[in-house]
């Protein structure tokens, strides 16, 4: 998967969880939760969605690694390559 493809999926996931936000407008280094005004509940929903779509389990201590779009895409790429397909 290319970074663009991952970004596309991630944007769709955010839209589903928080329909009235505009995740496609996020800059690579924007703090996602802050910019989109996502609370802890929605954040947890997003982590669940990551698990469902990419098969990635995100432990709580990794929450800091997915705070921006750039980091999030990197995190997903890393995790995916580590998983046997």
């Amino acid at each position, binding site marked *: 998967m290319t970074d663009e493809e991952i970004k596309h999926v991630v944007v769709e996931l955010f839209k589903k969880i928080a329909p009235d936000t505009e995740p496609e407008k996020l800059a690579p280094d924007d703090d996602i939760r802050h910019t989109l005004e996502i*609370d*802890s509940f929605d954040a947890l929903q997003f982590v669940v969605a990551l698990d469902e779509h990419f098969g990635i389990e995100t432990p709580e201590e990794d929450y800091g690694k997915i705070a921006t779009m750039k980091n999030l895409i990197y995190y997903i790429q890393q995790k995916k390559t580590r998983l046997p397909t």
Partner: protein
Amino acid sequence: MIEFNMPSLGADMEAGTLREWLVKPGDKVKRGDIIAIVETQKGLIDIEVFDEGVVNQLLIREDEKVPVGTVMALIANGEKGTGKTLQRLGKETETGKPVEEWQPVIAPHLVKASPLAKRIAAEKNIDLQTVKGTGEGGAITKEDVEKAAAQKAVMNEIKPPATESIRMAVAAAMSKSNREIPHYYLQQKIDMRKALAWLVEANKLRGVKQRLLPVVLLIKAVAKALTAVPELNGYWENGFRHKDEINIGFAISLRSGGVMIPAIHNADKKTLDELMTALNYIIPRARAMKLKSSELSTSTITITSLGEANAELVYGVIYPPQVALVGFGSIIEQPWAEQGMLDVRPVITATLAADHRATDGATGSRLLMYINNYLQKPELL
């Protein structure tokens, strides 16, 4: 060749035992001759032949029991046989039709309601679980459902799913509260270190979908505290009315503005996991404005939690006719003195807004103490 069969002498005869052949191969037989004696449940019966010819072969030995229709002997007749083999009646109706695919639909019996009540509830989209029955043995009657439907209609009127009207509803309720309820406020800082540490460990044991948020600890702590301080759980309706059930109204802010306060029923009796499940159920529906009227009207106290990265403390406005509201600010790291030592701890500030007509500060203070104590022993929650 003609077949001589074990005859059927009645619908209740299934088989017969050949006791004696009265003919042997080569014997000539004619219609009406008795050629065999067969034993049935009714005794020995003479068996006649209906055809003419020469006995060719005896196929059944004496004392052999055979079912009705079995060929017992062959009789040769020079010309073409009159006794053509007839199929047994009934066979034609048994030919295999394909087995119909069929699945039973068996709904669980959940509520005691009259059939009519069930029908009306289905028509009016009323959840019978939320209707209180006044009939025989608590059965829900037509009248009960119609009452609930009327209430729902009222709720729908004051709560059309438009942001603006939610804003108006909140405005009306809060104005009424501020106008009528003499609020008093208390606040308490709570060290969340143990609670959060316990939560991290607890979440390690859970899958992503089962993960708990800190807010469930807060809800459960409040609910348990209320069992110790029941004076704050109830309504003010011409005097304080205590409620047995602890139904916690959980304020959910809508991104588009306004709040919704769905109830989590019997929160004191739910486990943390069950509370999390309840939140997972309620929050998305609240945000989609798909809550049922009953979920909005049955809470006995309200909790408002600001969550992370927000204000440090909140002074709430009581939701009438309730008599108390517990507020939680953000968890933020603060210097914390304990036993003469200074440390940095994650701290949350709990506030209580309470109706002074129903309780005094001492009661409110006891509630906050209990909440604090429970959050220091998260394993007991």
